[in-house]
């Protein structure tokens, strides 16, 4: 048993062969290699199978509401900047129900690593289209095929000015471990969209489908070039690049507040009602 194992009374609720297991393995390895202790890390998640991650890896966990994984993560980071904050959730949670929080969290550039388990389908509610399901794909709800264009999360993140945008594949654990480590250590908002085929509901984007298509970005790829990154972000078809599409240094949100940057975490500050007495000067 590693330090990230809970004593579980039940087995994980994930299906046998689900990519979530591999993402969990990669995450544990990433945390271990970074030398982080369970109590130093928080996972915030929403609802869905991916969102159950905090139950299957022993770090602090805030398993909140559908689509709402990001706002609590921001609250947590601002309250205690010493914590490593990770968000784990699915494509429906992160891009559908939580779409508004997604775009605004990018604007903040707060120090959070956002790992999206993107299986291009709604698994837990049994096979409806997600925001990333391909146009025309038949599902248990979109009987005649999806009529809307899919959302491209990495392209969207790039246009919004995210400083760290990456794509991973749950079938390539060593590669994913490195992406996760980079994202966790990145000072600011880091998106890793992870292909995690749903073994039950998505008969199109299967492990085999991805295995045939994904390729590592070459070693000489310049991830500081936003134009190139956008080109790579749009590449989705016979060949799909995985790796860090874009990474530049940006001042993280919390450092833009002097009282946060230069003081102890908010949670450690002494509270004294008398400190507020001076504010009466506004009312005399």
């Amino acid at each position, binding site marked *: 048993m590693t330090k990230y194992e*809970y*004593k*579980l*009374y039940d087995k994980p*609720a994930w299906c046998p062969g689900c990519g979530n297991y591999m993402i969990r393995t990669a995450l544990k390895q990433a945390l271990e290699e970074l030398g982080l*202790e*369970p*109590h*130093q890390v*928080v996972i*915030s998640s929403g*609802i869905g199978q991916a969102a*159950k991650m*905090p*139950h299957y890896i*022993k*770090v*602090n*966990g*805030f*398993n*909140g*509401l559908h689509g*709402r994984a*990001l*706002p*609590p*993560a*921001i*609250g*947590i980071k*601002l*309250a*205690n900047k*010493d*914590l490593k904050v990770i968000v784990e959730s699915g494509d429906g949670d992160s891009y559908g129900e939580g779409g*508004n*929080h997604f775009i*605004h969290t990018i604007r903040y550039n707060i120090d959070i690593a956002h790992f999206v388990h993107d299986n291009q389908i709604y698994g837990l509610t049994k096979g409806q289209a997600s925001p990333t399901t391909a146009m025309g794909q038949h599902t248990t709800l979109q009987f005649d095929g999806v009529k809307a264009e899919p959302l491209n999360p990495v392209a969207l993140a790039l246009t919004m000015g995210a400083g760290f945008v990456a794509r991973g594949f749950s079938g390539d654990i060593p590669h994913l471990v490195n992406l996760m480590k980079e994202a966790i250590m990145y000072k600011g908002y880091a998106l890793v969209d992870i292909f995690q085929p749903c073994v039950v509901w998505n008969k199109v984007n299967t492990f085999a489908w991805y295995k045939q298509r994904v390729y590592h970005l070459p070693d000489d790829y310049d991830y500081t070039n936003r134009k190139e990154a956008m080109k790579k972000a749009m590449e989705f078809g016979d060949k799909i690049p995985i790796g860090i599409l874009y990474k530049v240094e940006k001042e993280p949100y919390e450092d833009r*507040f*002097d*009282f*946060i940057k230069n*003081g102890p975490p*908010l*949670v450690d*500050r002494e*509270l*004294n*009602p*008398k*400190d*507020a*007495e001076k*504010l*009466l000067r*506004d*009312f*005399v």
Partner: protein
Amino acid sequence: MEYNILIGGEAGQGMDTIGNLLEKTLKRCGFYVFTYKDYMSRIRGGHNFNQVRFSDKPLYTHSPDLDIIFALNEETINLHNSRLKQDGIIICDNDIAKVKEVMHLPLVETSKKVQDMRVYTTAGLGAILKIFGLPLDIAEGVIRDEFSGKIAETNIQAVRAGYEMIGVRHKLETREDKNIIINGNQAVAMGAIAAGCKFYCGYPMTPSSGVLTFMASKSDEMGIMVQQVEDEVAALNMALGASYAGVRAMTGSSGGGFALMVEALSLAGMIETPVVVIDVQRPAPATGFPTRTEQADLRFLIHAGHGEFPRMVIALRDPEDAFYQTARAFNIAEKYQIPVLLMSDEYLSDYTVTIKPYDFGKVKIERYISGPEAVEGEEYKRFKITESGVSPRILPGKVEGQVVLVDSDEHDEWGHITESAEMRVAMVDKRMRKLEGLRQEIEEPWFIGKENPENLIVCWGSTYGAVREAVERLNGEGVSIGALVYGDIWPLPTKRLMELYPKVQKLIDIEQNATGQLDSLIKEKALIRCSHKILKYDGRAFSGVEIYNRLKEEVL
């Protein structure tokens, strides 16, 4: 003595600035002041007014009868002339309203002389102070505190010029000033800051924005993280994240914004994470009357959220009460690990009143946070089943080797998702047991008026001031009447009402809504029925005079 001054005009003409200077000057002259605001939901234009009432005795509400109208446009005179007392005065600039009983002053001309058109209202302030024979140096001090540099000096020239334009009508003596002047939104923010709130987030919505604004203005100085977030959904979820991580967190909105928070309110109930939320009510449904007042969210707040979980709802009665109750709300939220909802409304949020300075020594910060001693066995149980229903709370990152897991699904003692029927019952029972403790915390309503009265009013929140004024006036006329003014309203305290009720002949519900929500709550919780209801839902606040008149006409 008592006087009432109305300053009216279009939005953007500076009523707030002049109202603020006038009320502060009158306060520093030692008077009790009450300023009522009436404004429209628009940026420029429309008709807005401020009514500054002042007296040598404490004031609790506004009054309809006017001694002075300072009109910034002709519409103001047409709209409010009927409320002017017989010996009242209307003052305005030369160019406005060529009606003969109006006192025309060369206000705009003065501002032209000092080359700043913005200051002609300040000249009006000078004229008003002269009418009461009040000294100019106090007003000049206020101006210097509010403005700086050239603008301050220009305003001072204007106030002096206005002072010369008119003669003394009522000579008043200044008195010693020991008070502060504050509105409800500022009072709530002050209470939160005193209580150690380190995280406040929200989405701007009238009339709640003042809380957000005041918190933001003190962010750097007091080390408070203040966030304007993308929507109210994010606001409460973010506050819960901050609270989970261990800081005192609060959010607020008005009815429509609170509606968006309801999903996360239910989450707070499930993850047993303390949070304070203020609903500054405005007339609804939907967008309603954005800048006006109502008390119609009571039933909504006590039931908000799907499912059953304990929460506390406290109605704020005036800016003094708002400060202490807000501070208290943080302690109760943490003690029981529940959401505490505060209720204010547009009237309370916007009126300013003189009160004695807050006693910060009275504010106690009680955190109820545990350390390693809370860990029994190998792993910490965030939702340990206890007799009180409250589990020891440790903070993430603060106890080595221990993690804190909270979950919106039904969960076991560790916070892990469960589908066990037995665990479900045990967890529901655990959460609901907090109500037992909470019942010990609730405070009975304030009683005002004659002891053991024949006529008893029940009311809540911001109607306190108007009801108090009406009751005192009726008591003065020998009427046996009293009032219970509810602050803690959920769970509903019933003891004091049950004691008084047997001797009561008429039980009168006074509320600013159309259905009598407190009356229905009393029926439900105390099995007592109000014999009369005095309701108002036109978006305008009750004054003491209005309640007095309606009691006379409809009840007594």
